[in-house]
């Protein structure tokens, strides 16, 4: 026996809608059609293409691989395959697992090589040849700033991956660019009180800083925060990005009168500088009658893995951690759903780089769905001042003034006795959003202008 879904009420509604559509002057439908065509890479078929631009070669290739896994998982969930992941917990219910605006999601990938010019070339290729309507990914602020600029010019949306420099949503912010990941200022604002409670207010800090945009803004943020709580900055030494051995930078530290060393390094730089600092006995050293301390403002799970046992006890900050929901409760809902999906598919927990890329893909898809259009300007409007929850970070705001996400920041420490290679950090606290929020015209973010959204063609 079959059952018809046709009801009298449904028939009247359908009839009315059809009649209204037929009666609508063509100028309106024509305008809508033009709007859907009047931007770069407007999807015309039954699919839409997203471009994932990650480091597939070079020093951050492992991080890039984890980002690609997350993108692949996000696309799977958007298309209604797999377990659904954070679609089940996302506070916005616009996405239904049927693609984006009914179009099946496809993707192309590019290799940034962690070089700005290579990243721009691969993004350009994905936009011009593959018809990507959105670009996401990256594991370097230099790359993110460069690709964001390109996307602004090309008229596509850029959903930044792992980029932590203040400049990405500060002096280099762009209307077409959005960042879910936190930034150097927020790291410092979250770490400050924790450092004060751990090490007191009378400390002398020495900074070793990677000589590029991320290093500069991280050092500036940490110095401002620690000096505000009474610490003195003894020195800041810029180290070349290509440096591999940091012994000659480490040896002057103990003779400088400092009792804290900040390693404003990322990736291989951080692994080597921390290893060298531990080799030179800084972890066990005494200075000014206190135990010497090493601090790494930002580190990832992969970096912790590279540093091995040297990371034990070292404080730092993260955008997200896979243990958040289990340890800090329902506020971080979405975390377990994502970890479950990711873990079942790949066999290990996701990194924070993977998480931010997954979240960015979902946020983009949701914005398009809510806007009812792939037009970048409609997406910008939908994302600006968008408040959401259920993506693992707790309640979050995508601020309109600078396109930066505001959410809790996770303060972590290297675990003393990890059980396995995925258990290298322990959560110290999740710093509430209010504590890491700043004005859009804060001096560390000044000089930038979002400008107008660019729909391109």
């Amino acid at each position, binding site marked *: 026996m079959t059952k018809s879904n046709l009801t009298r009420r449904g028939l009247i509604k359908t009839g009315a809608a059809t009649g209204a559509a037929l009666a609508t002057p063509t100028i309106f439908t024509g305008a809508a059609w033009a709007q859907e065509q009047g931007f770069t890479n407007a999807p015309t078929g039954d699919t839409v293409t997203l471009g994932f631009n990650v480091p597939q070669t070079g020093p951050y290739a492992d991080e890039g691989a984890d980002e690609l896994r997350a993108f692949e998982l996000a696309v799977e969930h958007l298309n209604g395959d797999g377990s659904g992941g954070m679609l089940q917990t996302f506070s916005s219910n616009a996405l239904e697992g049927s693609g984006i605006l009914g179009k099946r999601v496809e993707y192309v990938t590019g290799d940034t090589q962690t070089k700005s010019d290579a990243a721009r070339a691969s993004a350009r290729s994905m936009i011009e040849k593959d018809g990507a309507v959105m670009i996401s990914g990256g594991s370097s602020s230099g790359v993110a700033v460069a690709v964001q600029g390109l996307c602004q010019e090309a008229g596509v949306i850029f959903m930044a991956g792992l980029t932590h420099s203040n400049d990405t949503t500060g002096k280099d912010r762009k209307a077409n660019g959005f960042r879910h990941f936190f930034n150097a200022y927020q790291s410092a604002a979250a770490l400050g009180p924790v450092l004060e409670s751990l090490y007191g207010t009378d400390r002398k800090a020495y900074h070793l800083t990677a000589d590029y945009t991320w290093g500069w803004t991280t050092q500036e943020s940490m110095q401002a925060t620690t000096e505000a709580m009474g610490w003195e900055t003894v020195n800041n030494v810029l180290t070349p990005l*290509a440096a591999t051995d940091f012994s000659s930078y480490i040896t002057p530290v103990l003779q400088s009168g400092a009792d804290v060393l900040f390693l404003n390094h990322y990736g291989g730089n951080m692994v080597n500088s921390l290893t060298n600092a531990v*080799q030179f006995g800084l972890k066990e050293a005494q200075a000014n009658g206190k135990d010497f301390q090493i601090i790494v403002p930002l580190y990832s799970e992969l970096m912790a893995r590279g540093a091995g046992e040297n990371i034990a006890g070292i404080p730092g900050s993260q955008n997200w951690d896979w243990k958040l929901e289990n340890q800090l409760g329902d506020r971080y809902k979405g975390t377990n759903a994502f970890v479950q999906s990711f873990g079942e598919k790949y066999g290990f927990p996701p990194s924070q780089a993977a998480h931010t890329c997954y979240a960015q893909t979902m946020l983009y898809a949701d914005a398009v769905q809510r806007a009812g259009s792939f037009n970048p300007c409609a997406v910008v409007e939908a994302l600006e001042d968008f408040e959401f929850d259920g993506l693992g970070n707790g309640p979050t705001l995508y601020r309109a003034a600078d396109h930066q996400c505001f959410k809790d920041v996770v303060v972590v420490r290297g675990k003393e006795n990890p059980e396995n290679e995925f258990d290298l950090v322990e959560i110290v606290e999740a710093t509430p959003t209010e504590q890491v929020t700043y004005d859009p015209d804060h001096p560390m973010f000044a000089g930038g202008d979002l400008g107008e959204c660019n729909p391109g063609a």
Partner: protein
Amino acid sequence: MEAIFLQILNGLDKGSAYALIALGLTLIFGTLGVVNFAHGALFMIGAFCAVTLQRIFNASFTTIDESRTDFLGNPMQVQTPYVEAWFGPEIGASIIDWSVPLAILLAIPVMLLVGFIMERGLIKHFYKRPHADQILVTFGLAIVLQEVIKYFYGANPIPTPAPDVFRGSMDFGVLLGFDPNVVIYPIWRLVYFIFSLSIIAAVFGFLQFTTFGMVVRAGMADRETVGILGIDIDKRFTIMFGIAAAVAGLAGVMYTPINPPNYHMGMDFLVLSFVVVVVGGMGSLPGAVLAGFLLGILESFASTTWAIGLVPGINQIIIYLVAIVVLLTRPRGLMGRKGVMEE
């Protein structure tokens, strides 16, 4: 004074790696006349011999611990290394702990073999080709080798610690009459320096005091005459290529506790090592060693706060600056011989 002494130690330590790589480069250039841009890759392969042995020792079997759960809520899989099961937890843990020094035993045959295959399989076809061709093919080979390593081991650095007894630092200054706690130096870096001196001494001793070495030196000076005397000099030079590869490999093995190895580490050293060879004098073995240590020390001093304060950025250019000055004043390098690369 202590600060100067520390920087000299740092320089000698850095210079050890430069000197060992440059020594191998010079051996190959001096014997076979080949400019080997894949030499950094040999250093990297040596380092990954240590990583491989560490992995072999850590090869584990899995048991299920029902009392604990993993991150997905499934019963925890506990890994136990076979060596701990076979030899007991203490001896097993000691074997794993000594992975790096033990890797020397693995690296010597592996590197000799890699060197032999590289020379016979590829480089011998380029002996009569211009140096530009040799540079291109060996550079290409270096890229292939590092991508192969990346495929199997990933791009992330892999921690490869020294044995427990050599970890941490010692008050080296006290031994030399300094006040306590002013010249603290990592034990393994001192080990590396002593190891490098031993290898350098062994290579020079081999060339100086053995018949094989004498023939090789004669071949380096006048290949044709040695050939006319009925000596198969090509075979000896092939063996020298293997020895040069082993020297680079051993330098890589012992370097792993200093900085966790990654696939790119060879390239990081390659350019600097070539500058070392050029400054020391193309084809001069003592020149390569001298320049290695000299440039290591200069680089260390250029990285100090006062040097950077005096000339910002000096830490990034010092080696190239010295190379320019040396080449302007002594075009053949510090100890270069007449006629090398001057045809």
